[in-house]
């Protein structure tokens, strides 16, 4: 019997082939296997026969929404920044999307990075993606030459190594605490929607740090980012980071130095995370892309928690609902404002 992921792969190929053959889309964005085990690569199928190369498994960790706006633009006739948009319908692109990816697509639509009409979304309710680093830890960093996936376990093989690992044990932190595994926008589904998951301690990682003293929190923060080599893979993997010139590349003013000086690395991480406030869907792309194993997702998770506490909304749940930090209410909480706390004292 095929595993769940194998049947998803089959259905995905079928749907992609149909979309490409019928000319509904000019390209289909999905995944194909990479050259080493546990590393998948994003793949654009442009011909119906390419669809056979599509692959779906538990290692599709990068958020496909990230590649969507540039891919769509590549099908538009060239124009200068202020030229009017080209007339007539533009070619569409098909894409596979899990819960968080589809929410990032919502954010991109809201932020005018792409049009909803131009994407055909094949929804897949996510069972969680595997953290490669956790698998490596589980086998003490032994060499792995092949990984075979069953529905609830991974069979890991290498020279002198054969081990079965429980799948859920090596699922990424963000997926383990994910409450919205279902795509929020889609044109077709593969499999069933599973509904929101009930996770009591979804912010546990954040709360553990909140409970430390200010000094210990600083200690935690600096040691967490200590090994950062400033490769910006975390930024590049994020579907929210589309600015033509990122603040790290600005030179006048230069917000952050280019060296690995600890202060600059700290400022990079503070601002990278903060720029994602109210927009981040906790997809975990950034963390999965990091070569140094830095858990910078805890920073965006903290922002997500506060935005939810203060304004009661999460990013990308629906196209109609504005992003939390691009809207306001007259009576938003403001006890953090000095002059307001004075008022309280005087009363």
């Amino acid at each position, binding site marked *: 019997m095929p595993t769940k992921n194998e049947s998803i792969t089959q259905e995905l190929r079928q749907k992609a082939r149909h979309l490409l053959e019928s000319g509904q889309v000019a390209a289909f964005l999905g995944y194909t296997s990479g050259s080493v085990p546990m590393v998948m690569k994003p793949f654009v199928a442009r011909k119906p026969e390419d669809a056979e190369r599509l692959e779906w498994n538990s290692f599709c960790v990068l958020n496909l929404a990230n590649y969507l706006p540039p891919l769509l633009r590549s099908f538009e006739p060239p124009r200068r920044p202020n030229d009017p948009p080209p007339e007539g319908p533009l070619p569409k692109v098909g894409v596979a999307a899990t819960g968080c990816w589809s929410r990032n697509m919502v954010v991109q639509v809201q932020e005018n990075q792409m049009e909803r009409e131009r994407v055909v979304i094949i929804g897949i309710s996510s069972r969680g993606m595997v953290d490669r680093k956790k698998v490596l830890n589980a086998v003490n960093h032994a060499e792995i030459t092949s990984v075979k996936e069953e529905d609830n376990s991974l069979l890991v093989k290498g020279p002198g190594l054969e081990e079965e690992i429980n799948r859920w044990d090596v699922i990424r932190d963000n997926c383990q605490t994910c409450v919205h595994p279902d795509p929020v926008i889609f044109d077709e589904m593969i499999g069933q929607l599973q509904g929101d998951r009930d996770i009591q301690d979804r912010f546990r990682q954040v709360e553990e740090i909140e409970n430390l003293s200010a000094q210990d929190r600083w200690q935690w923060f600096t040691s967490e980012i200590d090994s950062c080599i400033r490769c910006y893979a975390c930024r590049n993997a994020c579907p929210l980071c589309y600015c033509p010139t990122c603040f790290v590349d600005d030179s006048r003013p230069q*917000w952050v130095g280019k060296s690995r000086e600890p202060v600059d690395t700290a400022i990079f991480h*503070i*601002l990278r995370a903060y720029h994602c406030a109210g927009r981040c869907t906790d997809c975990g792309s950034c963390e999965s892309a990091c070569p140094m194993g830095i858990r910078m997702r805890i920073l965006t998770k903290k922002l997500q928690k506060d935005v939810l506490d203060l304004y009661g909304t999460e990013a990308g749940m629906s196209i109609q609902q504005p992003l939390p930090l691009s809207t306001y209410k*007259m009576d*938003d909480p403001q006890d953090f404002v000095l002059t307001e706390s004075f008022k309280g004292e005087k009363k």
Partner: protein
Amino acid sequence: MNDKAKNQKDWEPKIIAFLCNWCSYAGADLAGVSRYQYPPSLRIVRVPCSGRVSANMILDALRSGADGVLVSGCHPGDCHYISGNYYARRRFAVLKNFLEFIGIEPGRVNFSWISASEGEQFAEVAKEVTSRVKKLGPARHLVKEF
């Protein structure tokens, strides 16, 4: 400033104050004209609106050696641009929590609403912010030595 000077008792903190042109800057002006006394620790940067102040600017101030930051704008409802301070309020609330989360001491980065007629309140806020920052001592966490 070298460390010796920082340890001195009469250490005066440097506080960067981003004041909006229409309310808080005029409030500061009024405080001066009306001769209210307040500590000389504020370095004022005039900005068009509190909504103009980005996290980048606040962190840049800290990185360049400011011991504290104050951002002040019009009272909600009084924004010259109608809603600039409403957006700013959301952003600052989240930023303030976030900076404290990574270990910046509460009290380093402050926010207030001061209107053009509140000279006295401006002096009060200046005193309060200065005393908070003095208690914390010189900033060290995000200061870059150039």
